[in-house]
């Protein structure tokens, strides 16, 4: 039974792989054991609760590939020609929450597009290829991280506050608590730590009085944060209008074409959203050309803001109600992080063939 099911998954994966190759992709291979350091620097310590870590006495910590994105991007950035379309087909390993019945090993077949000519067209290409090959009874979700990103960058506030918000864009709870903090007139936390009544000498004394100086973080680093806090204490709060746009983006649930109408309202308050909004509009047109009905396509403003930390533009998924069968999105910034100075707009996604094979039968 288990064997039959695995065989069915393999052959389904092969069928999807062929479809991707026929759509212009080059089949490539990737390592299963990845440098833990790269993944840890990218995702933070949390990746340890999602990926399996193993140890090599010489190479150090290695991670069982939790997805293909990082090795594929690394490979493209070091040796790939432009533009490029890739497909890959193989297992990934994911540690699951204690007690979870989710699988820890499964096959992913992916399709990735590295192309700087027309991002909207590439987004639509990837989405419609997935839409065409997947069963048509699945639930579709879409979002666009770029809208929130450009809204945050466009806030009338300090770069310091924007950087703090950007850093937590993919941690909705913390993001919202920072938004609250920055929207308050009296920021208590700043008052306590900014030592507003201390002179430079007074600060030196305060550190001296705190006891023996230990650790790698230097006195200068402490001063520089205090001076940042003092500066922040004088910053006026984020306006109610701007904060409400952010809130509305996060709570928006509509069809893609309805969403576009709301965005035009947002743009009046945060003009920096213009580029993301015209990109959104161009994407809808491109989707339309590929026969995707954007009047029925669901859109969620907060979609893609959890667990998929590297997405920074269009995001999508297909699910059967319980399980995500396919998901993907745009990850331009990731190519810059892994590209050592080079970058290229990139969009792609993966399908889990096991998710629509029950027993030995395709459903």
């Amino acid at each position: 039974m288990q064997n039959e099911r695995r065989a069915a998954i393999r052959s389904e994966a092969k069928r999807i792989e062929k479809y991707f190759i026929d759509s212009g992709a080059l089949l490539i291979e990737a390592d299963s054991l990845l440098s833990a350091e790269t993944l840890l620097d990218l995702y933070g310590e949390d990746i340890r609760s999602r990926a399996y870590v193993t140890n090599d006495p010489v190479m150090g910590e290695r991670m069982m590939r939790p997805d293909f994105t990082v090795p594929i991007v690394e490979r493209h950035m070091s040796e790939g020609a432009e533009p490029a379309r890739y497909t890959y087909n193989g297992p990934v390993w994911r540690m699951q929450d204690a007690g979870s019945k989710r699988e820890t090993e499964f096959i992913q077949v992916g399709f990735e597009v590295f192309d700087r000519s027309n991002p909207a067209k590439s987004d639509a290409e990837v989405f419609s290829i997935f839409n065409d090959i997947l069963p048509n009874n699945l639930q579709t979700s879409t979002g666009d991280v770029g809208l929130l990103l450009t809204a945050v960058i466009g806030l009338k506030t300090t770069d310091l506050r924007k950087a703090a918000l950007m850093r937590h864009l993919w941690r909705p709870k913390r993001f919202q608590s920072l938004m609250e903090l920055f929207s308050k007139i009296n920021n208590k936390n700043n008052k306590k730590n900014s030592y507003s009544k201390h002179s430079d000498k007074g600060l030196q004394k305060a550190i001296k009085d705190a006891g023996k100086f230990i650790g790698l973080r230097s006195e200068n680093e402490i001063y520089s944060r205090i001076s940042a806090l003092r500066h922040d204490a004088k910053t006026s709060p984020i306006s109610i209008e701007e904060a409400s746009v952010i809130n509305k983006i996060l709570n928006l649930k509509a069809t893609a074409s309805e969403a576009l109408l709301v965005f035009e309202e947002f743009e009046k308050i945060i003009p920096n959203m213009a580029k993301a909004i015209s990109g959104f509009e161009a994407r809808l047109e491109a989707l339309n050309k590929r026969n995707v009905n954007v009047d029925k396509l669901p859109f969620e403003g907060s979609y893609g803001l959890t667990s998929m930390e590297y997405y920074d533009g269009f995001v999508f998924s297909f699910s059967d109600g319980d399980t995500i069968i396919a998901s993907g999105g745009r990850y331009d910034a990731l190519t810059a992080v892994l590209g050592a100075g080079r970058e290229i707009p990139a969009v792609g996604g993966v399908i889990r063939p096991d998710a629509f094979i029950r027993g030995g039968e395709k459903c």
Partner: protein
Amino acid sequence: MLKLGVPSKGRLQKDTISWFEKRGLLLKRTGSEREYTGSISGVSGIELVLLSAGEIPKELAKGRIHLGVTGTDLIYEKLPLHQTQIHIVEEMGFGFADLIIAVPNVWIDVNSLHDLDAVAAQFRHEHGFRLRIATKYHNLVRKGLRNFGVADYQLVDSQGATEGTVANLTAEAIADITSSGATLKANHLKMLSDGILLKSQASVFASKNADWSGLDSQKNDLCKKMGWKDLIL
């Protein structure tokens, strides 16, 4: 035989023995001081098993002991599935210890997790690597920091003398169990005001995985003596 696991040495063992003694159950080590065997008088059919407090969670999960005394911190750290494997019978009111996050006293700009998160961003920018937090409670710390939303940190393993790691420049902050705070103070560290990740105390736990069949009379005797309603398994 119903097996009761208790810590094999130290303060925790002494407190456990006197806690049971107050309820009329005498736990005794048999043989020499160094031999890890024991006996129980006061109820029949119960066997005493002396174990390291750190081993007790695993033994409970495997069902090799029916009851065990250990700290809640060890249960939460070592058994991610503790809800389905064990049941807490009674908190014993000693062995209090909190899992806390501490930073150098001289970080006068840091009092909360919010500050720690901001400093983690600054530190990574300045030093080119993620701020190091030394601990042996990896799961609990990671979970606590994720819940709050602290980023740009890394956990470095420290199985002992954790408070010394900051002065030794192998970590910037620590996460450890503290009861009085004296060790923190001696090592020039302070607790974050909202950095208590877990409040722990010694407790009696029952294993849901142990074979309880044929142990009804021992169970009932013990419940009566201890004032437990049931072991609720």
